[in-house]
């Protein structure tokens, strides 16, 4: 099977950002993304997801290194200072690398 390596970029942040973030992610060149609803706790205190204002989302993006870096930098500049957000990356093996 032809498998190949890509970056998996995971962003956990406030669900208020969903609309703008997916716009940014697409503009920066990712071919897709997956979102799950989440709750959690971090430096900005607990986010219990009992209502919209306190809900988190988890966005996973599989893309090439350059795109991952571009998205990460963009988020770090524009959203890190003012929003609850964390972001991490790892290498994943994908089949059909041309999809990403």
């Amino acid at each position, binding site marked *: 099977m032809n498998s190949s390596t890509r970056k998996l970029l995971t962003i956990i942040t*406030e669900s*208020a950002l969903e609309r*703008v973030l997916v716009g940014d992610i697409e503009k920066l060149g990712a071919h897709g993304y997956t979102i799950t*609803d989440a709750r959690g706790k971090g430096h*900005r*205190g*607990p986010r*219990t*997801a*009992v*209502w*919209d*204002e*306190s*809900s988190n989302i988890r966005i996973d993006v599989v893309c090439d290194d350059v795109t991952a870096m571009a998205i990460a930098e963009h988020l770090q500049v524009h*959203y890190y*200072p*003012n*929003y609850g957000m964390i972001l991490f990356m790892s290498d994943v093996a994908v089949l059909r690398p041309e999809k990403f």
Partner: protein
Amino acid sequence: MLDPVLLFFLLGLAAGLLRSELRLPAAVYDLVSMLLLLSIGLKGGIELAKQPFMDLAWQAMAVLAMGALLPFLAFPVLRFVGRLPRADAASVAAHYGSVSVGTYAVAVAYFAGKQIEFESHMPFLLAVLEIPAIIAGILLARGLSRKIHLRTMAHEVFLGKGIVLLIGGLLIGWAAGPEGLVSVKPLFFDLFKGILALFLLEMGLITAAQFGSLRQHGLFLVLFGIGMPLASSVVGIVLGMALGLSPGGAAMLGILAASASYIAVPAAMRISVPEANPTLSLGVSLGVTFPFNVLVGIPLYHALATKAFTLAGG
């Protein structure tokens, strides 16, 4: 005695403070608040059809002006007495210029219980009041100097969930009229107070969660959270009298003025003034003003309005 629906609020509050396992799913909160917004909109819309257009336009403009003005009253207090950063002061001010649909619903239940009459197109004024404070808050935070994303602002102001359901309900009620809505009455009107009870149970749980964040910001915010609605209620009542509303209507406008947003404004501020700290504004609006208004404020503002009409009449 307290209206029974408020007992549900106290139950939620107690459950939250005691860290019970009670937690309603977010989908239930969404359903319940959607039903509340639609009910209020539909009820108001039915009445809109009966009002002369010019009266409505006139009242809408006066109320728009009030919603835009209140944040400018609140801002200097927050900025210079409370020493809040500019963005936070602007954001909190915007919350207090706007309205709380939950508070309005409790007031409707209270007025119905006491058989106090009020202008039944009040939901229209409620919808109108949702809007200007958001714009005022953004201007207070940004000034006119910096480019404001007009598109984003318009989106936040007019296309938020709450405003769409409220205005949608108003339009449907207006178009369908009372006979048209007979068939949906069992869901939207008969269940109203039961739905409100569930909503307040949830609000109690949410309010309890805000107390933690309040503790960090101290006494000033608690005082502001009580003083500001007291002042706003006077503005609302006086405006109601000037507009020729009935005593109940003026009291209701006072209640709207006194209430602070926790849906539309937080969502808009999060996007348009991101550097404002949302736990601070929600802490004071939900943790102080909402319980104060529903438990103490509503009868108080009604008494105020009654006194004002007596004085003005005498």
